[in-house]
């Protein structure tokens, strides 16, 4: 076993986990497969890129900006579009979010071209070397940031009044409504929150990946695998799923072939679906 490969996988997996959290939350609470998450991720990455490029703002400091902008965008999209389509059911929402994704992605293509861009803060090359294992500072920082954000979100969902309202709405919307929760507002809030989180994931990802309008599309497949691995609606599950996917990818790239990374990930997905369809840490998150 190569320790370096495992470390690489784990550091990458944290980011995958964070990227999948919003998707998992929306699926769990609203029963929507939100294909627009990819575009939100890309937008978050671009926000970091432009703030860094134009004003030299440190990429980590751009996180709140990404979160705010995407929260606003998410709120607008939920209250103006998603809300009106909800009653037409699962498939129609799939079509709508797919359309939204295309729209946003192409808008970014028109506005900022297909050029590959990268965020390169001064510290991006430096790293730690422990016993022959190399840990780049930036990857370590991203990993810690991702875990922190998931941790904060978990605390928010479990300990606050609004968090409890979101959980109750996820488990049984009707009952939640009748104990006095404004479930319509909770839907808008959940969607915006999920957009903000995936936007922040995009911001972090922009520091280690090249940014282009396609960035989110590439990540969407990973988000799928992570969510299925971990189980819908489970935040710790998303992190675990992310770590497993990260390690699997690292091993595939090192020992089999980098080109087979996605293939192996999807084989893993299918195996999990066959033997444990609820995911590794899946609970029944939405009620009957």
């Amino acid at each position, binding site marked *: 076993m190569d320790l370096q490969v495992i470390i690489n996988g784990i550091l990458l997996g944290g980011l995958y986990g964070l990227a999948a959290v919003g998707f998992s939350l929306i699926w769990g609470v609203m029963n929507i497969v939100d294909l627009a998450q990819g575009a939100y991720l890309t937008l978050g990455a671009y926000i970091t890129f432009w703030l860094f490029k134009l004003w030299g703002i440190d990429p980590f400091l751009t996180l709140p900006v990404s979160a705010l902008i995407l929260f606003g965008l998410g709120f607008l999209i939920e209250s103006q579009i998603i809300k009106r389509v909800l009653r037409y059911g699962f498939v129609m929402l799939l079509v709508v979010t797919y359309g939204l994704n295309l729209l946003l992605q192409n808008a970014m293509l028109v506005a900022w071209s297909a050029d590959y861009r990268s965020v390169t803060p001064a510290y991006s090359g430096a790293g730690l070397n422990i016993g022959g294992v190399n840990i780049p500072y930036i990857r370590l920082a991203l990993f810690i940031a991702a875990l922190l954000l998931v941790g904060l979100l978990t605390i928010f969902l479990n300990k606050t009044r609004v968090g409890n309202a979101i959980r109750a709405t996820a*488990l*049984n919307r009707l*009952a939640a*409504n009748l*104990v*006095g929760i404004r479930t*319509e507002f909770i839907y808008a809030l959940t969607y915006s929150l999920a957009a903000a989180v995936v936007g922040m994931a995009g911001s972090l990802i922009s520091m280690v990946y090249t940014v282009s309008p396609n960035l989110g599309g590439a990540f969407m497949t990973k988000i799928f695998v992570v969510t299925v691995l971990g189980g819908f609606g489970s935040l710790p599950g998303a992190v675990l799923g992310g770590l497993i996917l990260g390690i699997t990818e690292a091993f595939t790239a090192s020992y089999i072939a980098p080109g087979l990374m996605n293939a192996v990930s999807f084989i893993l997905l299918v195996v999990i679906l066959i033997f444990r369809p609820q995911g590794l840490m899946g609970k029944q998150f939405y*009620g009957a």
Partner: protein
Amino acid sequence: MALLEVKNVSRSFGGVQAVNNVSFEVNEGEIVGLIGPNGAGKTTMMNLISGLIKVNEGEIRFQGARLTGLKPHAIAHKGIARTFQIVKPFQGMTVRENVMMGALFRSDLRGLKGSAVKNIVDEALELLELDRRAEAPVEELNLAQRKHLELARAMAMGPKLLLLDEVMAGLNLKEIERLMELVRKLNARGVTILVIEHVMKAVMGLSKRVLVMHHGSLIAQGPPEVITQDPKVIEAYLGKRRHKGLHKEAR
């Protein structure tokens, strides 16, 4: 004083008149029964009161203020709680968490400390005899306990009016008697109760006044012993010939 006033309320679904020009009042402190054969419009009536569906015509007032047009959460904030024929717990939470969801979103508790919420939850758990199962996941409860849970969650909301939609359905005789006792206990604490029930023994035993719906209309109301003798009611339930059966069952 009338706590709840239903005035000339109608509601149709497509061409079906589910509730047709129904008027009644529920006074403070009463237990009122709402009975009628399947499809009479009882549950629709409850849905109209709790705001889940909209009133076509007429209006509903609570403590003198209009309910008609308010959203379900706003109606809940006014002090109307309800339970369902098919229980609707938050599966995945514990018994305590379920009851807590009742207390957490009360408009009158906003800004209060967590300890105040905890006290309310403890009280509701004890009242419905669930204190020993407080930390259990809901999945472990049997049907009777789940019905108690629904009532505990509703009581944690601090309701003035409690709408009970067939709480007795599916319970055995012993469980029914126990639950009847509990419903009387809730009423004694000042909660007004409107109860839909198919179990005649329960509804006749609990209610001082019974409303009878048939084909969406209110066809009779009065004390249980009068209602069971009413020819219109007997006909609605049994057709013309077998009317002695209902009378017997009511006892």
